[in-house]
């Protein structure tokens, strides 16, 4: 059963086709990766899914519901959540506050309730702080709740960003290069962690990743983008042996064997 379906998604910036006619189908509870060289349109695709860009053509649907052109906050309410390539936490807020902001779609406290502090508002606030602490514990940041986000170490900031994304209880989680800037052991931990997200929380994960080792070990299915076009799709083994993919990554001629590469004049 597909949770996210994209059909013929095209996004243009002026004359440039950042994405052209992308078809993509992500199954429920899958770990699905999008790879491709820099500028291939991976993050643009994320922005189209989350509603920050409206594609010129094509349809994106979530659980059968058309979400093309919806505003980002609506999309979040429908169960899509994301992290960013360059971490974008609310730096001057504490870890718990970051997560509480992430919980926004589920909270009901309004202007009047906040002022008079009726029982429901107080109760909700108490419960949400507890849930935030549980989430912190889940991502391995127990006891760090009162630290300013900007004071956390790099790896912890990545985790906090994921915790914040989880706080909206998403069905689909978009991770934009979650292992960027991490050393091998941290990367390994992150891979484990992403698996846990899927297995324990049953969240579908759409991943942009550059480290091939991560992509190949974790993904069930991979889509390869190059210059805004989908050039391949398949299981990790299929992708590894796809000549077009090797060409995109290593350059023309590489696929047919290193010995035959023409030296550049």
């Amino acid at each position, binding site marked *: 059963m597909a949770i996210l379906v994209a059909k013929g998604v095209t996004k243009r910036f002026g004359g440039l086709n950042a994405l052209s006619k992308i078809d993509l189908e992500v199954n429920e509870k899958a770990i699905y990766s999008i790879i491709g060289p820099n500028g291939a349109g991976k993050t643009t695709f994320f922005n189209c899914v989350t509603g920050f860009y409206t594609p010129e053509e094509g349809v994106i649907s979530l659980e059968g519901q058309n979400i093309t052109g919806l505003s980002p906050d609506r999309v979040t309410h429908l169960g899509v959540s994301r992290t960013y390539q360059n971490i974008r936490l609310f730096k001057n807020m504490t870890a718990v506050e970051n997560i509480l*902001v992430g919980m926004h779609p589920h909270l009901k*406290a309004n202007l009047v309730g906040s002022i008079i502090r009726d029982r429901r508002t107080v109760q909700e606030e108490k419960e949400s702080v507890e849930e935030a602490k549980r989430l912190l514990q889940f991502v391995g940041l127990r006891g760090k709740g009162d630290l300013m986000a900007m004071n956390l170490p790099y790896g912890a900031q990545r985790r906090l960003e994921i915790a914040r994304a989880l706080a909206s209880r998403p069905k689909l989680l978009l991770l934009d290069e979650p292992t960027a800037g991490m050393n091998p052991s941290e990367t390994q931990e992150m891979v484990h962690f992403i698996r846990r997200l899927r297995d324990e929380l049953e969240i579908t994960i759409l991943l942009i990743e550059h480290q091939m080792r991560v992509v190949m070990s974790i993904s069930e299915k991979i889509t390869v983008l190059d210059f805004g076009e989908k050039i391949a799709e398949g299981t990790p083994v299929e992708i590894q042996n796809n000549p077009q993919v090797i060409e995109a990554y290593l350059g023309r001629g590489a696929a047919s064997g290193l010995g035959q590469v023409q030296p550049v004049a």
Partner: protein
Amino acid sequence: MQSQNTSLWKPAIQSGLIAGGVAVLLSLVGMVATFNQRFIISGVFSMGQVIFLAPMLLMSYFFLRKTMALSSQKIVLYGLLIGVMGGLVLVLLVLLGTNFNLQAMFINSSSKLYDILTFNQPLAPGLMILLALSAVMGVLASGSFLIPPRISAAVIQGITWVLLVGLLRDLIITVTSRWGPLAGPVKSLFAVSGLKPLGAIFLFALISGLYYWRNGKPVSPAQKPTQTKDRSLLFWAKWAGLIILLLLLPPILGIFFSDILDTVFMYILMGIGLNIVVGFAGLLDLGYVAFFAIGAYTMGVLTSPELNADPMTYWQALPFAMIACVVAGLILGLPVLKMRGDYLAIVTLGFGEIVRLLALSDWLRPWFGGSQGIQLIAQPVIGNMVLNTQQELYYLFLLGVGIVAFIAWRLRDSRMGRTWMAIREDEDVAIAMGINHVAYKLMAFATGALFSGIAGTIFAAKLQSVYPHSMNFLVSINVLCLIIIGGMGSIPGVFVGSLVLMGSPELLREFAEYRYLVYGALLVVMMLTRPEGLWPDARRKLELHEEELEAEAHVLAEAETSAMKSAK
């Protein structure tokens, strides 16, 4: 270290020249002459003299504080150098001013100014005194680093209090005149302007003595309330005390000072509102006066018999004024939602001017009275009592401030406050978190507008009239300044900022003339030395001083480990 010390001569000379430059500037803009009539110590020492000598003292103090770990000899030398350099610049000014006519360019360069600068002595000895006193100022600052901290702290306290009490003579005499047996002794400390010399000495001895004694007293553990019950009791006791004091202020202060208090509280009311817009949600609004105007004018239009066959009472019109302000806040909010930062500031600035010009226009004269404004605005009536004196209206302001501060505080610590903060921090991400930024920004605008409008209605009722020219752009700037000085996003900061910026020019009428000069200087100095404001929000303080705090923690941790090592 030695090489570093020798290379300090140049910065020291520079600091001295800067201090001198500041003193010259203050003299030439006329502050020295204006303040010369106001004595700190009657017949001995005037505020004018403080103004041209203080730069040397302060510059020397900050210079020496920055360069730690000097030998005591060097400290005195540097202090002396800064004082002398500053003094020399002033001497140069006097020589220039007495020999050439600078008045074409500097209108305040009068013989009166030079008499003040030479202490009413003939030129040569006068200049010697000026130079010597400047040097003394520099050395005085270095002295504070040489004598034991307990003594120097006491002396500084003593001097500060003498300055303050001398300046606030009128206020203190008014307040204490009702204290019965105490009124006489207090009054005997003061002359017609400022303190009597003996009074000053007495006050100095009293304050520094008290301070010295208190500092030396070991803090007994019994004094610290350890139990939470005690602490919460203390907390409530403090609040109760504060509220009783606030309620008793008008009879204590009398009509004149109550009027000043009204102004201060009116600006607090507006400040708390703007603080929600600027401090919480991060939307820079330069047209805040518009809502004040809308509140005041709605009150005027609905209650003045001039414009209305069937005028309402204050209380009947109040809800309409509030609704009008909220609607205006939403109307301003809608078109500017997509704008950020500078663009938002410019558009709101325009909005403020549009409202003022509409009020002023002949076109709308039948409704708003044009430049004549609206008169005969109703005053609030409670029971049979008409609130029409400054003292009675104070309670209305106080009630308004109380309600509004409570609301702002509750909002800050709620989902609303968090959401505003998230929008301030990173709007795109906030939207991606499912936040409807349109709704939340509008809410901030509307809340801010409402608070400002309430201030406007009381203002209209107080004066019983409104004029377009009181809806000046400078009102917006004043409110913004007091938030910045008090501390962005901090509610107590609004109180402090308003008291400092709105209260002080009223208490010291001479200041009013230099109000914006002082504001400008204060803003620059604050941004350089204390960007978080006078009474910062706990969080803001963390943001801006993170490194220092971390460094402090580091030093502490190191000290701890070394202590542990030595213990082993």
